[in-house]
């Protein structure tokens, strides 16, 4: 009797029209990705493609000048050699910003990961992220308040060491790097923190039990194990810093001429969109070339 009932149940189950068929995997994948890809196509890919087309035009296609196909914007670095210096400046600023972010961000992430007492970790995390709830422009401008002559920094220095005079370094490359480090540090902290928090405490304890002091643990254990976080943090920092224009303009003044500001000028001041677009794509090519050069190192770092 009972086995009959089970058989009947099984038979009914398989022929039940309301029975849900499993959705094929490719349908599910497509359905899950469609919103994102649709959005990206509409909002990023199409405008980017338009810009790419623009970069081959002789003039911005909004005036009355006739448009012809040209490659001359891609020769800008040859025609205007001063651009090479500017690009070099951008790369140097990108390098120092990324390096400083990596050092500070990694150490801060270690502190975060090791802070286990009560709600210390949450508090520290909020304190780190709090400044980023304010507008970016306001943050950069507030640095001018600190760095200008007789600003907050000078005031504090004057209180401690009255004879030293002004140490203001607003409108220098140092100020630009400082502002950029401030802006991109959280990305580095978060990516490093995520990498560090996956490390088993027992690994650190094992190292200590074998005689390792804190600096050995930091350099031989934590640093290599957090390398994936450091590398993704470096990519997240380096790429936008190369193209940044707000910080160089506000904190760099006259010396703050970077690829970012030059490109911005083409769009806002010179109204030469094709040149701006061509420079953007050249910059993209340079960044990709840099990553391609270091891809071996990057890959090893992310799989270790």
């Amino acid at each position: 009797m009972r086995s009959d009932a089970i058989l009947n149940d099984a038979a009914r189950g398989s022929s039940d029209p309301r029975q849900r068929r499993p959705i094929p995997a490719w349908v599910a994948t497509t359905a899950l990705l469609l919103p994102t890809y649709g959005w990206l196509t509409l909002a990023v890919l199409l405008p980017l493609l338009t810009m790419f087309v623009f970069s081959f035009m002789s003039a911005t296609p909004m005036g009355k000048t006739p448009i012809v196909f040209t490659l001359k914007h891609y020769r800008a670095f040859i025609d205007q050699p001063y651009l090479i210096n500017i690009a070099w400046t951008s790369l140097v600023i990108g390098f120092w910003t990324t390096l400083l972010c990596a050092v500070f961000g990694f150490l801060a992430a270690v502190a975060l990961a090791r802070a286990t007492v009560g709600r210390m970790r949450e508090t520290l995390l909020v304190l780190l992220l709090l400044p980023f709830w304010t507008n970016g422009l306001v943050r950069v401008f507030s640095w001018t308040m600190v760095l200008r002559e007789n600003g907050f920094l000078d005031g504090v220095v004057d209180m401690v060491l009255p004879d030293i005079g002004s140490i203001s370094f607003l409108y220098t490359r140092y100020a630009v790097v400082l502002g950029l480090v401030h802006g991109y540090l959280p990305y580095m902290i978060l990516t490093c923190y995520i990498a560090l928090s996956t490390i088993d405490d027992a690994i650190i304890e094992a190292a200590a039990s074998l005689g390792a002091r804190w600096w050995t643990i930091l350099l031989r254990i934590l640093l290599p194990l957090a390398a994936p976080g450091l590398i993704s943090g470096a990519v997240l920092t380096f790429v936008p810093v190369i193209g940044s224009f707000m910080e160089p303009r506000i904190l760099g003044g006259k010396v703050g001429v970077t690829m970012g500001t030059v490109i911005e000028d083409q769009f806002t001041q010179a109204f030469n969109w094709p040149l701006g677009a061509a420079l953007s794509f050249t910059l993209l090519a340079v960044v990709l070339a840099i990553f391609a050069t270091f891809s071996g190192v990057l890959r090893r770092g992310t799989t270790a």
Partner: protein
Amino acid sequence: MTNVNVNSVAKTYGTTPVLTDISTDFPEGSFTSLLGPSGSGKTTLLRIIAGFIRPDEGIVSIGGRDVTHVPVWGRNIGMMFQSYALFPHMTIAQNVAFGLGRRGIHGAEARKQVDAALEMVHLPGFADRMPKQLSGGQQQRVALARAMVIKPSVLLLDEPLSALDRRLRQEMQVELLRIQRESGLTTIFVTHDQEEALTLSDKVAILDKGRIVQIGDPETVYEKPLTRFAAEFLGDSNFLKGKVESGAVRLADGTVVHAAGTLPADGAQATLAVRPEKMFVAKDPSPGNRLTARITTVIYAGQALSYILETADGMQVKLFAQNRDGNVLKQGETVVLGWSADHTVAVAD
């Protein structure tokens, strides 16, 4: 001389005491298991000896040297963890050589010692592999080699075998014991597996609520438990409660039970512990203790049989028997249980 001595060590987290006044000595070359339920403080005690936790009070010394305020890296300990804790970004050889490097041993000398250590744990030829490529048992062998290669003063094991499956665990137990015996290293082993504790150690310490309730060789701790907790935690026990009457204990139903060792004074309440495997079904009158009970549950496990019985006044008694003749007692049967007075121990509640 590398004994480990712990003197009136106490540790409190917030207001919760984790360890209260622990004083004990781990003699040179001894293999001691710290056994207890979770929260008993066994891991805390091990971590205090290792140096990961600083005790609020008391002194820890290793080989006569007071290390209470010496950081972990200065204590020269070998440690094994439940999660193996191999460095995932280093090869097996680099893992084993890590502690040597911290002691200034590099190059050919280090390689020689690493090879010897891997030989010892039967993993020669694994030097260039990564930890991920090894099975759990192999990883734990590497961890053992890594801990032993630095010639530590003491070997501290934090449940190193609990992540392994049964067969591997038994293999590793044999291995661990062999290496410990060969090296004569003072070893302290935290476990919640009582069988493992009895098999491996020459001393078992039972912890409960931050205290060592009993410490001694496995046989003594098992056969002569001092407290009800010790009798219950290590193995299984039947507890018989009654009043002391002229050198024996009279239970509530009037049965008189004789016990080995000293009993409290006449008229006092006493709890007696009897191991279920020491009891048997008494066929003919023989000297020793007797108890009549009815079988309520029969648990058949092939080679072993377990019965749960109930006496007339509702007391539950367990009986373990070997399935020697294939005759399984039936549920509902009333039998007379017999056991020797030597196997009856008075325990403190």
